[in-house]
């Protein structure tokens, strides 16, 4: 019986083996399932990643952080920096074979700028966008800004992806229903099964730039025929499957499982996103006690980043305490005004709370329990805040509940909230205009609704300032103002490596995982 079973199992293995050996297919477990496929409509990172598969961008950011033309062949800037003329490359095609036109691009820019914070800011500077001919268009500004080129090359959510005009005409608050891009991969709509897998194939007529790939810029050469993103909810099972060679890549292996991968000769870990991500704590500025800036300041004294990073990441190779509000390792990073903060000075925190007249009413901390990377933040925050003099009511739920609760301004006893924690890709928070949590325009701001006219003025100044040196000075001023109003708090910077089988090569260093240039040998 046992012998027969073994034969049967062996027979199965042979059959399975042959089906796996089909040509160049990359099987990847991403951090989440793709449920929505409109990268303008949502900021979810998985949808942004999907966008990079099938869409192309006018400009893109290279490995060094410079914005380079991508779909744009060339552009001219008038001496007064008010008129920009863009010309598209030859041979750009949509996946249905029709050529990409300037009308397509204008419609796409318009739709993007209705949703994206940078796009919205940019549009306050834009006078007109007009098509000159099928392949070129002109943007006229009301006053000079560095946001135009930067915005069109924005690397992370929302990325200004180019879509055909008929698709881009969709109302920005409605999801698109046709998934045609001009990027290096084509979405196989017939094989897309939400909750199971999403399949892409190489776009044979894609014309890559001649430059070598660098970051998100350069030639996007698809080197595999087919890419499957598989939805595997169980982290450990994803790692098991990678170790067993059933899949080729895991986008975000759980930190605690990395030792298992690092010790295996058939696995390679890629630190593809050196800027990484930032854990962030957000306050609800509309509800007591966090409507009082002193109470928010108390938090900056009570917390320390190391405890959060130890509890979530654990391995110092993958984390770095970073007090700067604008991403350590970039131009705008500065420690100015940060001395004494984030060092778990519980006494100072308690003093500030006393001055603020905190009444000891428990604060509601929203804790998400189903996202591996966020789960451990809650208990650490609770412990540190309690030591700093707060009473904490940690309310645990799945992430989607956190997401739906955090947008409610209700009082605490009616289901409202005080504090929540999340994580930002560093590429989304490089400067005060991009970083959504600095938006202090009261009701118009993102959830948390900080309200500070001076902060808003500084952000406008930054948008208007094209000179990098002066930009840095404004960013530091923002940081000093932040110290007073404390819109949010950073809990530390960390990286998540991509894990692949060793026969996979060519992973690009970029703020988002992209799969052109990737080969499987």
């Amino acid at each position, binding site marked *: 019986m046992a012998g027969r079973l073994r034969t049967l*199992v062996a*027979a*199965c*293995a*042979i*059959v*399975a083996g042959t*089906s796996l050996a089909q040509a160049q297919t990359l099987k990847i477990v991403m951090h989440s*399932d793709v*449920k*929505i*496929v409109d990268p303008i409509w*949502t*900021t*979810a990172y998985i949808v942004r990643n999907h966008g990079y598969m099938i869409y192309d961008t006018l400009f893109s950011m290279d490995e060094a952080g410079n914005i380079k033309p991508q779909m744009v062949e060339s552009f001219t800037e008038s001496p007064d920096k008010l008129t920009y003329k863009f010309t598209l490359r030859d041979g750009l095609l949509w996946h249905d074979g029709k050529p990409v036109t300037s009308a397509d691009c204008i419609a796409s820019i318009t739709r993007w700028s209705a*949703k*994206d*914070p940078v796009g919205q800011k940019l549009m306050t500077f834009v006078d007109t966008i007009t098509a000159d001919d099928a392949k070129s268009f002109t943007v006229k500004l009301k006053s000079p800004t560095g946001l135009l080129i930067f915005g069109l090359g924005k690397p992370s*959510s*929302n990325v200004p992806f180019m879509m055909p005009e008929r698709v881009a005409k969709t109302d920005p*608050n*409605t*999801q698109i*229903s046709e998934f045609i891009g001009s990027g290096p991969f084509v979405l196989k709509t017939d094989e897309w*099964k*939400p*909750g*199971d*897998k999403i399949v892409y194939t190489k776009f044979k007529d894609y014309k890559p730039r001649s430059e070598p790939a660098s970051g998100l810029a350069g030639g996007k050469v698809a080197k595999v025929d087919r890419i499957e993103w*598989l*939805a*595997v*909810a*169980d982290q450990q*099972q*994803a790692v*098991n*499957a990678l170790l*067993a060679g*059933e899949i080729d890549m895991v986008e975000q292996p759980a930190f605690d499982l990395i030792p298992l991968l690092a010790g295996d000769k058939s696995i390679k870990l890629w630190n593809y996103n050196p800027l990484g991500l930032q854990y962030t704590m957000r306050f609800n500025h509309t509800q007591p006690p966090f409507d009082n800036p002193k109470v928010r300041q108390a938090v900056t004294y009570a917390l320390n980043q190391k405890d959060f990073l130890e509890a979530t990441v654990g391995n110092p190779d993958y984390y770095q305490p970073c007090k700067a509000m604008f991403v350590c390792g970039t131009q705008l990073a500065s420690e100015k005004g940060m001395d004494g903060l984030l060092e778990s000075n519980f006494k100072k925190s308690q003093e500030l709370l006393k001055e603020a007249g905190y009444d000891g009413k428990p604060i509601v901390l929203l804790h998400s329990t*189903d996202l591996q990377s966020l789960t451990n933040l809650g208990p650490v925050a609770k412990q540190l805040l309690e030591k700093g003099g707060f009473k904490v009511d940690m309310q645990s739920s*799945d*992430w*989607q*509940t956190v*997401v*739906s*609760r*955090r*947008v*409610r*301004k209700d009082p605490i006893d009616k*289901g409202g909230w005080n504090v929540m924690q*999340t994580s930002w890709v560093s590429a989304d928070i490089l400067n005060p205009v991009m970083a*959504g949590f600095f938006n202090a325009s009261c*009701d*118009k*701001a*993102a959830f948390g609704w900080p309200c500070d006219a001076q902060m808003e003025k500084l952000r406008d100044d930054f948008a208007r300032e094209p000179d990098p040196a002066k930009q840095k000075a404004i960013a530091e001023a923002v940081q000093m103002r932040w110290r007073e109003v404390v819109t949010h708090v950073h809990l530390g910077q960390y990286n998540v490596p991509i894990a692949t089988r060793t026969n996979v090569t060519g992973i690009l260093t970029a703020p988002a995982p992209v799969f052109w240039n990737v080969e499987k040998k």
Partner: protein
Amino acid sequence: MLGYILRRLLATIPVLVIVAVLVFLMLRLTPGDPAAVIAGDNANTEQIALIRNRLGLDQPILTQFLIWAGNLLRGELGESFFFKKPIGELIIGRIEPTLSLAFATMLIAISVAIPLGVLAAYKHGSWIDRIVMGFSVLGFSVPVFVIGYALIYVFAITLGWFPVQGYQPLSSGFGGFLQRLVLPAVTLSVIYIALIARMTRASVLEVLNEDYIRTARAKGQVERKILFRHALKNAAVPIVTVVGIGIALLIGGVVVTESVYSIPGLGRLTVDAVLARDYPTIQAVILLFSGVYVGINLLIDLAYSLFDPRIRY
């Protein structure tokens, strides 16, 4: 008989209506807001309100219910908030893995449990009986995901006999299909082996004490013949019942098993939908499961009248 079937069919309608109302109310009263979930990180309050409006979530609950029920009667399950696909299409795409898992599980469970149960009853009081009974209690006592992890550890990771996860449709090859189905099906079958073995043993035991078996024995009939011709046949009614209940309970079991083994079936769809507050999908799936449950009960009742000639309607 036909009249009986018809009466039973009609009786299922109020049950399904009650299920529909219950499910609808329960979900609409939950605190989660799908609009906020869909809108994402950068969305402001205004954008969220727009989405809520578009999904019809700002309408009074009664209106929402009437719209939903009306569509349901026309056979339209609606569109998933999240997947932006018709729910019917979503469900059809997920049925095969769940059906395969359920079928394989019951196949294993029945083919292991009934012989075990008969054996235990026949050797009543012996060590075999004790082991079978002990196993059946144990089978109820270990959570299904613990069994799953243990099996993965031994058979997939250590021995490498089976893949650790995944599902392969039958259409892309029977070998791969079977190879991926074995571990999940064994995992899930443990509790049913326990349940069915127990019931089989009890029923056979009862029949063995009946007068006609004693008579058969006294007449010197072969034991095997007594066991299979008389005892098992007459014990079939409760066994069929328990198998039927087992199939209905399977629905709960697949939720966990599909999560452990990353099988893209209806169970995973349900959990994903609940976590995403995808109301129309949750409603449709629960209705479907309840319909299956009601249908199986109907079949059990009919099976009764077939297996047990004493019951007449």
